[in-house]
């Protein structure tokens, strides 16, 4: 019992209270479902009051989660590290391959664009095998009789003459390099037209030019180009540069050393030359 504004009132019964709060609840729900400002204010107030509850509810879990994440992060970092290292190794390999490929592309582009030899048809050939010894300097190419390769065919690269085909299989062919001890190539000095023959020495970076008399006008730095004599090699193509000229009074001839201009020890592709006039030079060898 109590008094309210002078009236004596009973404590409201539970049913009365229930009816009251049901009305209040329905009112709240209706207002809330229409996104009312007032209910939002109530929600915010209650939310602020209950914020510590939410923090408390999340606390053990967030703490456990943090600890667990610390552990997991460690193992994951190790795993990631291992994985990334493996990946890096693989990528490095791929990158080096890419570098090799790029070099090859550059080389082949140069071969295709930089070697138009007048009167000759050219074709790329892949080097299958190299034998570079003091008694034989040979290449094996992946082109053979099926590709119309013939013995005595000239083989060049961008920088100069490499050698000639000496034997032909159905699908492969052997190339004797100009540095082979059996090889000789008729050359002409670009500076003054002096004719000579450059012989191989069995060493990939050296040619010798014998049989030039001591009075011959030849100097280190002279570029020797193929003369075309003998018909095997295309004329006017660079062969070697003279590096050393020694004159011995006791000998009849000069001792001349030259370095091949073709990069015999580089790259994996060379060019085969076919004379446009098929009759010319077929089967002839100069050696």
């Amino acid at each position, binding site marked *: 019992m109590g008094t309210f504004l002078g009236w004596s009132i009973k404590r409201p019964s539970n049913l009365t209270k229930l009816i009251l709060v049901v009305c209040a609840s*329905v009112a709240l729900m209706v207002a809330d479902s229409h996104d009312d400002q007032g209910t939002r204010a109530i929600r915010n107030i209650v939310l602020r009051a209950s914020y510590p509850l939410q923090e408390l509810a999340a606390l053990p879990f967030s703490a456990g989660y943090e600890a667990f994440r610390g552990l997991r992060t460690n193992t994951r970092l190790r795993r990631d590290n291992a994985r990334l290292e493996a990946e890096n190794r693989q990528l490095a390999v791929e990158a080096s391959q890419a570098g090799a490929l790029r070099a090859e592309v550059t080389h082949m582009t140069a071969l295709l664009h930089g070697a138009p030899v007048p009167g000759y048809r050219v074709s790329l050939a892949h080097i299958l095998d190299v034998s570079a010894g003091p008694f034989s300097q040979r290449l094996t190419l992946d082109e053979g009789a099926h590709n119309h390769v013939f013995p005595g065919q000239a083989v060049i690269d961008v920088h100069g003459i490499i050698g000639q085909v000496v034997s032909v299989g159905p699908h492969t062919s052997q190339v004797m390099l100009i540095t082979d001890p059996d090889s000789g190539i008729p050359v002409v000095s670009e500076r003054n037209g002096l004719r000579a023959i450059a012989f191989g020495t069995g060493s990939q970076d050296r040619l010798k030019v014998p049989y030039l008399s001591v009075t011959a006008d030849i100097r280190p730095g002279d570029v020797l180009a193929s003369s075309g004599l003998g018909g095997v090699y295309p004329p006017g193509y660079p062969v070697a540069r003279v590096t050393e000229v020694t004159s011995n009074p006791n000998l009849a001839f000069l001792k001349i050393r030259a370095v091949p201009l073709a990069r015999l020890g580089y790259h994996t592709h060379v060019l085969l030359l076919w004379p446009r006039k098929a009759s010319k030079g077929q089967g002839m060898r100069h050696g």
Partner: protein
Amino acid sequence: MDNPLTLKQRALIIASFLAAMILAIVPLPSSIHLLRPDWAALVLVYWCMALPERIGVGSGWVLGLFLDVLYGSLLGEQALAKALLAYLTLRFTLRLRMFPRWQQSLAVGTLVALSDLMLIMIKSLVRGHPPLWSDTAPMIANVILWPFLFGILREVRRRAKIS
């Protein structure tokens, strides 16, 4: 009933409600999420049974309002359900006290289920959520939990000499 509660006793009751609310919103894995009992409802039922003169419809309503905000549900739906639950409990409190424990837990489970039914109706009316069979899982959890919760809260009440 005329001996007013001390501050400490009031704080204890409020703390039990707060604990129930925390348990109600503690994040659980979705596998056992369905089996989460309605902690707040059970604590409310207990205090309504123990202190029918002090804890009642109004307390239930305020509790429901808090739950509404914590759950992010429509403001008033939990309040309505909990007020109804408090009313039903007060209505049957004398009978509930006399029941043996297992019967009591079934009866309490039924009361909570009634208030849950209210919630499900409101949800399907207002938001178009269809009633699901999975809604009954917490009701079963309530029945299982009740005897233990009753024992704990009675022990707390006796130690604190709340009556």
